[in-house]
């Protein structure tokens, strides 16, 4: 197993490319997520955000490029890399026939957590997510928001240093949206790193230290929110996003500019 030095970024992606037949979903993408940083991957629907996160979490294999997670080569040692992350997919499908507690027990045990610690952690998480009352109920009976909270609990149950979150705030009511945001900030405050994808620029502006804007799998801009705003000559991240994404399409087909 490779050791991670303090200077090593939490996540390092280099020249990542992923194709599906003729479609290039991720095209020569490179970025780094530093320690204690909240990094936002911004892009429209189909921009390649989810594909990138799936490659990082071992759900897809890239056609080219490198991925290092906490200093571990995620392509050569996927199991070691997976130990270091907590992952929340966009629309998490869960085992409907398991109860919430059973599901978290399974996740924690498979992450080699000691039973006593796991039990305490599950109790604490279910309490914070207001799911204690339903801990013995089948997940199949849960609403979308409850599922999202349970999936989030499964991503953090082993207290990972690195969180990879795909649209973490979708499907949540404002109260839990705030809880998740506070959680993400607290995680970063304790030195943990977060890589999150979103197409809601307001969330990125509020939470992220650094952002990367991607479109059609290509990196259009990266840096702190301020740097991206300055680079695009706009005042809000939403305007910057529209300028960058719209601009890239305009450059591809100058003969047919987008019309209002």
């Amino acid at each position: 197993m490779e050791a991670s030095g303090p200077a090593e970024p939490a996540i390092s992606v280099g020249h990542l490319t992923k194709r599906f037949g003729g479609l290039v979903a991720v095209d020569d993408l490179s970025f780094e997520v530093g320690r204690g940083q909240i990094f936002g991957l911004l892009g429209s629907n189909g921009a390649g955000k989810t594909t990138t996160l799936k490659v990082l979490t071992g759900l897809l294999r890239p056609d080219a490029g490198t991925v290092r997670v906490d200093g571990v080569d995620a392509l050569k040692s996927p199991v070691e890399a997976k130990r270091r992350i907590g992952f929340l997919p966009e629309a998490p499908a869960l085992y409907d026939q398991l109860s919430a507690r059973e599901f978290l027990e399974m996740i924690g045990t498979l992450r080699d957590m000691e039973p006593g610690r796991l039990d305490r952690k599950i109790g604490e998480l279910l309490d914070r997510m207001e799911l204690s009352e339903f801990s013995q109920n089948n997940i199949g009976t849960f609403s979308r928001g409850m599922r999202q909270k349970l999936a989030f609990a499964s991503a953090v149950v082993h207290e990972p240093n690195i969180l990879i979150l795909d649209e973490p705030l979708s499907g949540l009511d404002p109260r839990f949206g705030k809880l998740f945001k506070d959680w993400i900030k607290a995680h970063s405050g304790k030195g943990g790193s977060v890589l999150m994808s979103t197409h809601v620029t307001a969330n990125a502006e509020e939470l992220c230290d650094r952002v990367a804007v991607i479109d059609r799998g290509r990196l259009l801009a990266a840096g702190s929110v301020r740097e991206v705003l300055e680079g695009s000559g706009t005042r809000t991240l939403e305007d910057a996003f529209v300028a960058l994404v719209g601009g890239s399409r305009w450059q591809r087909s100058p003969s047919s500019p987008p019309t209002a």
Partner: protein
Amino acid sequence: MAALTVFAADSLTAYRSVLARLRRHPAMTAWFIVLMLAATWMGLRMAELVASQGLDAGPLAIQPHTLLLVYFVIMMGKSVVDTNSRVTQNKEMLLILGQPVDIYSALWGKFAYIVLGNLAVLSVALGTATVVHIAFIPGLAVPPWFVACLVPLTLLASAMGFVFSILTSQPNLFKRAVLVAAFSELAVALYMSFDWLKGTPDYLVPASMLLFAAALSCVPMASRLFLSAWNYEVSGAESVVQRATRPGSGRLFRALSRWMDPGTRELFRKEMVINISRKEVGGTLFTIIGLAIVLVYLRGRMVEPAALAAPLGRLVLPLLVCVGLYIAAVLQFAMLGLSSLGKEGSNFWILRHLPVRSERVFQAKAGALLAFTPVIVLAIALPLPVLAGMGPEWLLFFVLAALALAFAFTALGIWSGTVYPNFDEGTRGTPDVMTMYLIMMACLFLGVLVVGLPGLVMNYDHTVGVMCMALSADWSALFLYHAIRRSARNYDALEVGV
């Protein structure tokens, strides 16, 4: 009008899906047709042989009306499965239920689709049988009432399967039991009328039609119960207050998983809970126990083996047990193994993002299937030999044979499930019918190797035969070990779609 729209949409979808499947595997389709013709020829040839010696001749006294009842049971089972996947457990029904459409109309459309599917199967079967009959076995006289009965029985089986699917999905156990028991009387009526009318078979067609009319009148009644069934199956909305009761916390589970490391035990528990909750194992076990009853019944109806010609007399009982073991093992190990990866469906991401060795995942899947081996031993391997007074060496032979088939078919099923994975939740991960058919054929070949060869030795020397069977079980376990490793490799190469 709504019924017609629903029916047309479903029929068109099914037609296109069949067409796409045929185009995707043209060689397999051709092979499937050859196998179907060969199987039909074998069936008709056997019927000709039996008919030439009189209907009651041979080791099993099976009459034409018994065959019709067997056909009815199979068709009804198919209708239940089709209704479950297309209607009662189908999340896409939400799209229809959300429209301003009368629920009865929508369900009549669905019912018509189930009927059409069954009639299509019957047409293909009859067409194939007619071709084989005319071309190869023109001497076989098939009574017209036998063929005529197939149509009303198909209609009756469709109606009963449709209603049973809705009734067995009711959230309240007591209500479910009462309704199923009440509706089952139609099946009893069918059995009794066939028994009474076997001397005057021309009356079987009107009798079946009358029963079909009765079953059809129950369809609207079942439609009234549909919403509660659908909600229960799809979202479990009515079971929110129910606490989960788990086989995983029982003593049996602890005993079974004692030797496992904590991670594998968790995966094993997940497999057991999901398999049992999804009623797959329940359905298979129900079939296995039904099979055991049929075997014992056949033994009771059988001409005394000693009265049969020399090789047949000695072989008929072991063969009957082996056929039972083959069917049970195919259902419990090969078929459930085949869907063991595909049934993960959209949950596939969970295991893939966790730091778990893939071998562990498949060890747990294999373990959850093999945990039910004792049921097959107790239901199939032991009762018939005990009733027939076969010696202890035969009992040991059949127990070992059950183990060997369990290991070999689990290996084949799980490995094939990673080669032909199907993540379509509508079909619960079961590959298409052609793949299933090929796996069944492969199981037959494997079964002959694993049990047939030691069985040949057993015919000459019991001690050596039992030792050969033990060796075969050992090799099957080794086969399973390698299949798990290969499956893990295939699994690692799979990608989660975007």
